[in-house]
């Protein structure tokens, strides 16, 4: 969130004097705990959804009931009790939130300070019940006006269901079908938040789109659903997440992101994920089970996923590219850091269907403490995909002796003209490197940050500037205490 400060300032300029207002008490409504058809009907009704969407949810729910939680990932965790979760809860009332920063976990505040986040933003992020807050809604409205001139649609998924039913019907579930996997099916049944983006033909989106402008409160949605459509010859860069850890009471996060890229269009999707990783002994922390997929449907379309994953106790995530249009391009740049008892099983899938399609995978996994970091990637070349290329580079960096890094590449080439390259390395931060940095005056933490940022350079430089600076600091903070 803070990483978008610059953008926010730009928007404030556009918006002129933004308004301050009293946050009105939002009526607290909760669906009963657990999941059944009634709860889904409740959600749909609360969101004032059209009938077809309710049916779609119910269909997903029925499929989900017959599915089993996957266990092929190299992850071990207590399986969530799906009947012990609230699937719909309106934002908390002010009474339930901390009254001031004094009541907020000092550890969290220390991290905010290190990231250079202003006091006001700290209050918002940590969920303090401030009575005067930056009115993001009015800014977002102005922001949306600017986009509207270009014909860009940028709204919540619920609004899209109401206001753009044709687009929603056409694209919802078109990249990630309802029964794609256990968590995608669950998300399809109960999603309550998320973003809808449509970039019309020939439009280059005038600004980086960030969820910040859309979400009124600090909490991120538990079951988010995002759809991005880039029509012919368009371009958009989308930022998800926030370098600052946010207060969050939901243990299970199961988001779905669907991206459709049409002819000559390009989508750049950047994520910084820094949810609560649990404490040093591995207690608590978020389960992050995400399905992200992009379909390059038009010729010469391009999608590029960049992710910096430092948070969550367990991450299960494979942003993928279906390269259907001839000459389409898929890219995946990933940094995944695991420390203490964190586990990450992440990677990508590049499915080459069209001719002359190409993909690049650069994955940097860093493990410290007792953490496990797994890269799992599939490169698949279909029989008709002539002259495809893939370059994969998977580098692992280990800090200490108790952590692990594993690389699991799957390659299926059904066309002999495919050129596939795979490189993998595993290294450690050596005592020599560390001493060299210390000898030049850097302290242990700075040294680790520097070395790790160097290791991740090819990925970090893919991030939009305003994200990159904070993400660099974040790498160091995530690895705090891992050396020395």
């Amino acid at each position, binding site marked *: 969130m803070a990483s978008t400060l610059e953008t926010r300032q730009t928007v404030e300029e556009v918006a002129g004097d933004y308004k301050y207002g009293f946050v009105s008490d939002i009526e607290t409504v909760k669906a009963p705990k657990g999941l059944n058809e009634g709860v889904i009907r409740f959600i749909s009704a609360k969101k004032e959804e059209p009938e077809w969407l309710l049916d779609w949810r119910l269909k997903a729910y029925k499929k989900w009931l017959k599915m089993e939680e996957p266990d092929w990932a190299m992850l071990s965790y207590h399986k969530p009790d799906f009947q012990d979760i609230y699937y719909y809860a309106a934002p908390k009332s002010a009474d339930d939130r901390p009254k001031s920063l004094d009541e907020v976990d000092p550890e969290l505040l220390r991290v905010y300070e290190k990231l250079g986040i202003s006091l006001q933003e700290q209050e918002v992020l940590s969920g303090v019940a401030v009575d005067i807050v930056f009115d993001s809604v009015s800014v977002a409205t102005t922001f949306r006006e600017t986009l509207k001139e270009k014909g860009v649609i940028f709204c919540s998924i619920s609004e899209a269901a109401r206001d753009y039913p044709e687009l929603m019907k056409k694209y919802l579930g078109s990249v990630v079908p309802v029964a794609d996997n256990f968590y995608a099916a669950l998300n399809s049944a109960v999603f309550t938040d998320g973003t809808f983006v449509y970039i019309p033909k020939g439009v280059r989106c005038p600004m980086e789109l960030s969820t910040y402008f859309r979400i009124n409160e600090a909490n991120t949605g538990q079951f988010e659903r995002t759809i991005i459509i880039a029509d012919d010859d368009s371009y958009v860069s989308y930022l998800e997440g926030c370098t600052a850890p946010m207060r969050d009471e939901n243990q299970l996060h199961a988001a779905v992101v669907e991206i459709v890229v049409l002819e000559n269009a390009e989508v750049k999707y950047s994520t910084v994920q820094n949810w609560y990783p649990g404490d040093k002994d591995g207690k608590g922390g978020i389960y992050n089970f995400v399905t992200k997929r992009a379909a390059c449907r038009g010729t010469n379309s391009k999608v590029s996923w960049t992710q910096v994953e430092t948070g969550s106790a367990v991450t299960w995530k494979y942003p993928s590219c279906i390269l259907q249009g001839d000459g389409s391009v898929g890219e995946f740049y990933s940094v995944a850091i695991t420390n203490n008892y964190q586990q990450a099983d992440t990677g990508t899938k590049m499915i080459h269907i069209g001719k002359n399609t190409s993909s690049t995978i650069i994955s940097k996994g860093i493990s410290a403490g007792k953490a496990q970091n797994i890269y799992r990637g599939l490169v698949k070349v279909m029989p008709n995909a002539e002259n495809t290329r893939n370059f994969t580079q998977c580098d692992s960096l280990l800090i200490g002796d108790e952590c692990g890094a594993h690389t699991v590449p799957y390659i299926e080439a059904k066309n002999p003209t495919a050129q596939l390259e795979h490189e993998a390395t595993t290294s450690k931060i*050596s*005592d*020599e*490197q*560390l*001493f*060299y*940095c*210390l*000898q*030049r*005056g*850097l*302290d*242990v933490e*700075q040294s680790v940050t*520097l*070395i790790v*940022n*160097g*290791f*991740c*350079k*090819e990925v970090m430089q893919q991030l939009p500037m305003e994200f990159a600076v904070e993400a660099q600091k974040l790498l160091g903070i995530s690895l705090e205490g891992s050396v020395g």
Partner: protein
Amino acid sequence: MLEIKNLHVEVGGKEILKGLNLTINSGEVHAIMGPNGAGKSTLSYAICGKDGYEITDGTVTFNGKDLLELEANERAGEGIFLGLQYPVEIPGVSNLNFLKAALNSLRKYRGEEEIAAVDFLKLIRAKAAELEMDPEMLKRAVNVGFSGGEKKRNEMVQMALLDPIFSVLDETDSGLDIDALRIVADGINRMRSPKKAILVITHYQRLLDYVVPDFVHVLADGKIVKSGDKSLAIKLEQDGYSGLGINETAA
């Protein structure tokens, strides 16, 4: 300035330095020579506080401060610099970034302000020019793909930039071509000042023709076994360590 008394150092459970004494005063240049494996690099690491070099006995003081109490980066902050025998590669980190971070850390330790980006660039370019290093190399990752000689020259650029009070230069001359040796020697001589001191570790008398030392010591089997002036280095060059009655494989 630097006072080492009865220093005993163990590495991997093995005693390498066995009661070493050495005093270096401001304004002086000392040279240490000695057979391979004698413990010269070990001494430099012990002075600079590298992990794994366990001081089992003795004291090291620097301008009255107990160095052994300080972390490696704090010792750097106090003004100690080590030019490494084998400079280390840091992939993905440009020389510029590395040095800017280093310089600012040192400044912070000394209670000074961070250097402005523009001033830093001017300064580092000037230092690179002094040592005739191609400024393009500043943009490259620290020592990655540098030739042996380029790495050594890079160490000297770092020294010139960080401007230490006391420099230990561990075989900085090894691997340098004839011209580079002179350029590096000039760089070392520029560091000579009544307020500073330098300890050069070398195998060759050649460097000492350019950087004339006030004292020459022979380190063998974990101790200083002989000290003298420049003529000791010349004598060593002629007679070898065995000529001095030192067993070449002492360590």
